[in-house]
């Protein structure tokens, strides 16, 4: 990087040529008063406090003036002091002076400036005008807005517009009446505010302030427990209670930013509903038991169980170490490979599909590369709701000039930022993507060199394109031909192009085909193996990537090493010192069928809630009742746990050490902030205790660090990962040895396939399993709310519940008109498998003929409706498409 030499107040400074004077000064520990400057935002120079004298002549604002070689800067002269004094006095004249009771106290920039400049109290009194007290907006459950304390620096306005991309407020009115206001002065809760708290975190005074949050006594650096983005957080602890969470500015994933769940959704940790002691069901009721009693019972029942009668469901919410221990237990102690987890319900096609075409089923590139892409193609991902911090990056890319193409049946938030929006009929992704590829080939926009050098099987793929002409695509997808062409041209020509997708692609009976279509289009345009390109499945849960990596899957050991490959089988038998089965186990969806068939009789369930998350939930309820013995290990008594014979209380992420692997394959340290609540224990320890009671070896771990050592010794892609190395940063796998710095980008020279080439896959269009008909005329698709996570076990414990209270059936005004249904009324949604009541939301976000629901609310269990028709390869159920009718109950 180029540097320049400047002199500030007689001090020689060498600084980056791209810095401003203010940045150079602050970097070198020289304070220049400033209010409207924030390091994350573009400078605007409106507070006039950072005024400096340049080269002995002119005055200018230092926040907007770039440094120049030889520049001489004075931060203080008589004239500057005068200007600053006037500016500060005008701000202070009507500012409340109750600093001690203000939440901004000690962090307030105005306080700092006042003490720097020195305020004459008598003069201030004479300046004080009759004050008008404006009402404080207390409508948000997490923060208040007090306009009386606002200094109009506009940091919140720029944060909301440029960081979050919401633009919920702006300067309103004029002169003395100026204030920061939402549209029409609406209270926060009724405004477009997404409660991310980014403005609150940046407010330099006490105007936007968290509701009564005391200062933490200590802070612990860890990783957010919600989605797969894996934001770094500092948990604030006071006594034995987690009271706050803030973004870790040094974490490369989120760079200090968070969403509403990460910043405020920690209320579940110390919630009174937490399980604090083991429970054993006696005569139909749960009774508290000692660990000894519970573990003895579990060990005795497990010991009597034959290998094929046992199944374990591990958890994408638990750490890598927890997952490793659960799969090891299942394989080494119970003698079966039937261990799976909810990745089956979200990204199994990504693992299966990308493994075929690229050789590795994970995000090819990194989150930090998104902002440098020239084209972003977001298909089947409502990024703003499900991966909010990645959505910030997408919006940043758009701000930097990237073309955003959004393909989604619904008019999701990202559509507002997109240049090209494709609203295709749910389940027609293959038709859409293949038609785009046909346009690319017909117009000769493909990357011939890349195809020739790096790919194989192009001819077979090329032949299969023939069927996807524009007429067919328009008819099938409902997207106008011209738009398909425009999207194809943009993605093929605006490079680098990055493709993002999520469950809109995977949760189909043709989910694997959808994934292959995404890899085809990336290969065709040469958008793989370069920065800001690639095929990037956004993983749903905090550690769903890790749970897959660590072998909580029925066909592979940790590191995707196949159980039926003889040398792998031998390697693990030797390492674990026991006989292992070389027969792949059955999947999540198949486990419930096997329980119905009475082949699986004992289920060990760690941190999952299939009663709400599994498609065709009635089928699951009936299965859970049929089990001979059912153990649930969780932090709350979930809807699933109610069916259990024994419930074991687990420690939450804040109460244990470990690692999570985020969606970009980054392994990051999770650190214990408080002791396990009540009598709960970390998951890995509970499983180890069961194994030890069953007199099995290989479970004598004192801490998770030792487990990671064993993982590294057996898992090539995690070979170089140790707790010591993870101390100050995450590492992205493959990280084969301790010399490796990890791999931010996959396939840069070779693909991970056997031949080293990217494989084109010929595809056919297959309609969804259940299409609308006369009896069930609407398509039901499932989605996520920003305010809740998965089955909402963790998010329905406080303020998030205020932000979104109940299940909503979103329906287009046209459909509502036809059915004579009104916004806000309770409706009954009926499918072939069951019925559910929920509140109707009439909105044109939902396309005609499609309704959508989340699955966060136990009182409206959406998955009672969904179809359990599965993808033949990945065995994922088709939760994105089923046929329903909506009626008055």
């Amino acid at each position, binding site marked *: 990087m180029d540097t320049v030499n400047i002199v500030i107040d007689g001090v020689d400074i060498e600084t980056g040529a791209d810095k401003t004077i203010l940045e150079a000064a602050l970097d070198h520990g020289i304070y220049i008063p400033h209010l409207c400057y924030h390091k994350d935002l573009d400078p605007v120079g409106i507070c006039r406090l950072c005024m400096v004298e340049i080269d002995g002549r002119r005055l200018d604002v230092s926040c907007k003036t770039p440094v120049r070689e030889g520049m001489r800067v004075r931060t203080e002269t008589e004239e500057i002091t005068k200007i600053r004094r006037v500016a500060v006095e005008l701000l202070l004249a009507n500012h409340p002076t109750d600093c001690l009771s203000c939440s901004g106290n000690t962090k307030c920039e105005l306080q700092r400036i006042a003490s720097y400049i020195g305020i004459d109290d008598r003069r201030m009194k004479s300046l004080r005008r009759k004050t008008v007290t404006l009402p404080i907006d207390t409508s948000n459950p997490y923060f208040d807005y007090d306009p009386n304390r606002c200094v109009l620096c506009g940091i919140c306005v720029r944060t909301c517009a440029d960081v979050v991309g919401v*633009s919920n407020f702006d300067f*309103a009115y*004029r002169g003395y009446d100026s204030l920061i206001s939402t549209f029409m002065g609406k209270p926060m809760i009724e405004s477009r505010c997404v409660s991310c708290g980014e403005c609150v975190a940046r407010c330099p005074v006490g105007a936007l302030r968290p509701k009564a949050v005391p200062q933490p006594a200590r802070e612990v650096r860890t990783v957010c427990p919600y989605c797969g983005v894996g934001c770094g957080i500092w948990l604030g602890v006071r006594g034995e209670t987690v009271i706050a969470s803030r973004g870790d500015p040094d974490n490369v994933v989120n760079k200090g930013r968070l969403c509403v769940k990460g910043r405020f959704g920690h209320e579940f940790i110390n919630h009174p509903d937490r399980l604090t002691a083991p429970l054993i069901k006696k005569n139909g009721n749960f009774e508290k038991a000692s660990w000894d009693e519970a573990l003895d019972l579990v060990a005795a029942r497990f010991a009597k169980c034959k290998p094929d009668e046992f199944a374990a469901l591990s958890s994408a919410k638990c750490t890598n170490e927890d997952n490793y221990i659960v799969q090891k237990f299942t394989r080494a102690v119970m003698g079966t490979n039937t261990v799976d987890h909810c990745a089956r319900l979200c990204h199994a096609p990504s693992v299966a599909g990308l493994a075929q075409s690229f050789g590795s089923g994970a995000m090819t590139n990194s989150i930090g590369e998104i902002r440098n892409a020239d084209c972003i193609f977001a298909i089947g991902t409502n990024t703003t709701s499900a991966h909010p911090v990645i959505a910030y990056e997408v919006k940043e890319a758009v701000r930097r000039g990237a073309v955003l193409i959004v393909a989604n049946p619904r008019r999701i938030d990202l559509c507002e930022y997109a240049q090209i929006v494709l609203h295709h009929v749910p389940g027609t992704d293959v038709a859409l993507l293949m038609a785009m590829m046909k346009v690319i080939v017909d117009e000769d926009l493909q990357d011939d060199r890349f195809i020739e050098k790096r790919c194989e099987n192009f001819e077979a793929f090329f032949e299969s394109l023939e069927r996807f002409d524009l007429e067919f695509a328009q008819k099938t997808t409902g997207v106008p031909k011209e738009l398909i062409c425009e999207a194809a041209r943009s993605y093929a020509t605006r490079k680098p192009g990055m493709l993002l997708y999520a469950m809109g692609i995977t949760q189909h009976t043709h989910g694997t085909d959808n994934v292959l279509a995404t890899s085809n289009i990336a290969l065709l345009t040469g958008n793989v193996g370069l920065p800001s390109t690639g095929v990037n499945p956004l993983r749903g849960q905090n550690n769903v990537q890790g749970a897959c990596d660590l072998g909580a899957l029925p066909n592979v050991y940790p590191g995707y090493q196949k159980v039926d490959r003889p040398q792998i089988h031998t390697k693990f038998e030797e390492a674990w010192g026991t006989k292992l089965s070389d027969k792949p186990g059955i999947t999540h969806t198949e486990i419930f069928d096997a329980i119905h068939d009475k082949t699986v009789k004992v289920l060990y369930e760690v941190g999952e809630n299939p009663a709400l998350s599994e498609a065709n939930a009635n089928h699951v309820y009936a299965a859970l009742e049929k089990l001979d013995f059912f153990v649930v290990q969780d932090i709350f008594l979930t809807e699933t746990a109610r069916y259990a014979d024994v419930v074991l209380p687990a420690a939450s992420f804040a109460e244990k050490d470990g690692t999570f692997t985020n969606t970009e394959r980054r392994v990051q340290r999770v650190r214990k902030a408080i002791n396990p609540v009540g009598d709960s224990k970390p998951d890995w320890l509970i499983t180890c205790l069961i194994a030890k009671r069953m007199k099995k070896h290989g479970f004598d771990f004192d801490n998770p660090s030792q487990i990671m050592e064993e993982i590294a010794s057996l898992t090539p892609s995690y070979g170089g990962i140790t707790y010591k190395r993870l101390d100050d940063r995450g590492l992205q796998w493959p990280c084969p040895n301790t010399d490796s710095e990890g791999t931010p980008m996959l396939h840069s020279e070779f693909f991970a396939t056997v031949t080293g080439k990217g494989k084109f896959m010929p595809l056919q269009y297959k309609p969804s399993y259940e299409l609308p008909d006369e009896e069930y005329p609407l398509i039901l698709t499932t989605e996520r709310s920003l305010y809740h996570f998965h089955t909402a076990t963790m998010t329905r414990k406080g303020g998030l519940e205020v932000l979104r209270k109940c299940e909503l059936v979103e329906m287009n005004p046209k459909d509502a008109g036809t059915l004579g249904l009104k916004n806000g009324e309770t409706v009954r949604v009926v499918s072939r498998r069951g019925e559910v009541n929920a509140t109707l939301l009439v909105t044109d976000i939902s396309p005609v003929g499609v309704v959508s629901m989340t699955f966060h609310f136990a009182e409206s269990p959406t998955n009672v409706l969904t179809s359990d028709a599965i993808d033949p390869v990945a065995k994922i159920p088709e939760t994105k498409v089923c046929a329903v009718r909506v009626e008055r109950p």
Partner: protein
Amino acid sequence: MTQSTEEFMLDDIIRGCPHSRDYLISILQAVQDRYGYLSRESIYRISDYLDLPESKIYGVATFYNQFRLKPPGKFQIHVCRGTACHVKGSAGILDTIGRELGIEVGGTSKDGLFSLDTVACLGACSIAPVITINGKFYGRLDNKKVQSLVKKLKRQGDGT
């Protein structure tokens, strides 16, 4: 849901203006000329058309005195706050009208009859203090005259 004719007209007005953020103020003026104020719905539509956040449009609309966010009354009263009128007691006139009608500057009475605004100068200093009602000038006012004027208008309004 079918669009009402009003909505069509609103769209016509908006789409009749150039498709550029630079024309925001012209668009706001055109909409206000037709409807007398800027409704919530109209701002949403302008926001869609110009791809501009509605909070920003609200900021502009509240910055300029000429824009109203509430429907104007049947009788639109403008009180001159120019220097000459001020010297001749326009502050008192404004207070009296506000009190009589129970509204503040920028407001519209509940019955929809009156709206009250101030202007910087009406250019009729010779007859200060002066107000206009629906564009008609009333000069050399005092509190008593204003009170009876308002009463008369109230009767007129009730009668229709």
